[in-house]
């Protein structure tokens, strides 16, 4: 029983970290219909900025998070303006080509500028150490990640489903020309959504850094993980991404516990099963 509880907690913690890191991608892929393979690259930029601010400048963790989000968004603005704007509404494969290209560039530049070693973001004392749950302990930063994940999920859900802006962005994705013909400035809507998605990527990069350490190849290393979470959840759906993260976290964690040597089989067979049962994602928007 204790073991089961313990695994459940690990699963929850891992799932929420997956969620925080992937949710920005769900916004770009589901709402903006851009297959943004450079998501990891932006998360990584966030990680580097936070590491630089918190460790090298000694500004502390909270400042690091802020610098990461704001800095990454600022870096992303010209990229959106000159590159992404060209691929909105383009065939998916064209988007793949462009965003992979961006990723390669980011990897190369990071490698050149910061070198290939791992970068860490020092945790504040309040997030270090672990919390004793009686039968086991759990790292405090994971509890923080869980909480942040829930807050992000709620805010994002509200923004997309309940506000006028949310409606405009969804309309623009369905049919940009028609949305414009109704008087919506789609470029602005797109730019803002992109900024939100990038901010989330940066946040995820920072919060997840304890599990997925920041290094130049980060940008590609976890791409598949992000893609799987988003697609299983159904791109563009916040609840879907949340459920998918938790479910995949649980499958991965139990698989790794019960039969680590077949963990990979376990995980991907489960993915196949889920996708076959829910071909549109757990809560996917209709195409």
């Amino acid at each position: 029983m204790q073991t089961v509880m313990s695994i459940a907690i690990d699963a929850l913690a891992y799932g929420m970290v997956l969620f925080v890191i992937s949710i920005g991608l769900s916004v770009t892929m589901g709402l903006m219909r851009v297959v943004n393979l450079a998501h990891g690259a932006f998360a990584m930029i966030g990680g580097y900025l936070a590491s630089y601010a918190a460790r090298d400048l000694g500004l502390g963790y909270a400042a690091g998070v802020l610098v990461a989000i704001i800095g990454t968004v600022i870096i992303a603005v010209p990229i959106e303006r000159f590159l992404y704007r060209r691929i909105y509404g383009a065939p998916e494969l064209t988007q793949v080509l462009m965003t992979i290209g961006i990723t390669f560039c980011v990897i190369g530049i990071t490698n050149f500028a910061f070198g290939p070693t791992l970068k860490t973001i020092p945790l504040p004392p309040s997030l270090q150490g672990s919390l004793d749950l009686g039968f086991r302990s759990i790292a405090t930063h994971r509890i923080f990640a869980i909480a942040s994940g829930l807050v992000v999920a709620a805010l994002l859900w509200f923004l997309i489903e309940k506000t006028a802006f949310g409606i405009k962005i969804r309309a623009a994705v369905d049919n940009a020309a028609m949305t414009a013909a109704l008087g919506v400035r789609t470029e602005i809507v797109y730019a803002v959504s992109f900024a939100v998605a990038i901010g989330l990527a940066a946040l995820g990069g920072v919060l997840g850094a304890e599990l997925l350490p920041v290094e130049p190849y980060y940008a590609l290393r976890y791409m598949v993980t992000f893609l799987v979470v988003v697609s299983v959840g159904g791109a563009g759906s916040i609840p879907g991404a949340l459920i998918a993260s938790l479910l995949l976290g649980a499958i991965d964690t139990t698989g790794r516990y019960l039969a680590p040597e077949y963990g990979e089989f376990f995980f991907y067979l489960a993915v196949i099963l889920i996708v076959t049962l829910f071909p549109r994602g757990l809560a996917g928007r209709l195409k």
Partner: protein
Amino acid sequence: MPAQPLEVTELSSGYGPTRVIEDMSFSVPAGSRLAVLGRNGMGKTSLLATLAGQTRRFGGAIRLGGRDIAKEPSAARALAGLGYVPQTRDVFPTLTVEENLLVGLKRRPKTAVEEAYAMFPRLKERRRNLGSQLSGGEQQMLSTARSILGQPSVLLLDEPLEGLAPVICEELMEAFSKLAQSGDMTIMLVEQRIQSALDFADHVIVLERGRIAWQGKPQALAADHAAVERLLGVGGLH
């Protein structure tokens, strides 16, 4: 003399390198109802799409209330008072009926959607349905209602009656007439049902291969059997 709500001079446009609209000039007085007729593929849709900023323009001016909007993007034209109901309806499939209507509100309060429901009670019943789950006629109603909610000064309608039941068609045409006669709205209508169009309009232009081949009063067109036969391919009008 106040500027015409819509004035088009020497407009040409098309898709990619091909020209579809050639050198077109006309103007529409305030509160009038202009019908655009023509056979298949003559450029009616292209003309409206060009006015709405959805095709590639090669040259010419489009004045909306005196201001040249030809170089402005689609959204700016809409905000300047141009409404557009495309032939393909272009309902947003993943948005609910209500959300579809909200997109068209521009800067009006949310409560304004009730106006649309008053016009089409059927939409109110289906307000929580997704756009993709509507019947063809319901989509048509939604597309029209969505544009009218934006209170355009010039409304471009591309075959708004297609797929609607006869009763609804009558009601809708009446509603359009009222809107136009109140002077708030100028309407430009493309329609296949020639009789309905002529009953509705106070001015008609007929397109042939991207050019204006005939223009004048509806009664004059009805009387000009030769032109009707040649340009519209129909024997006679009753």
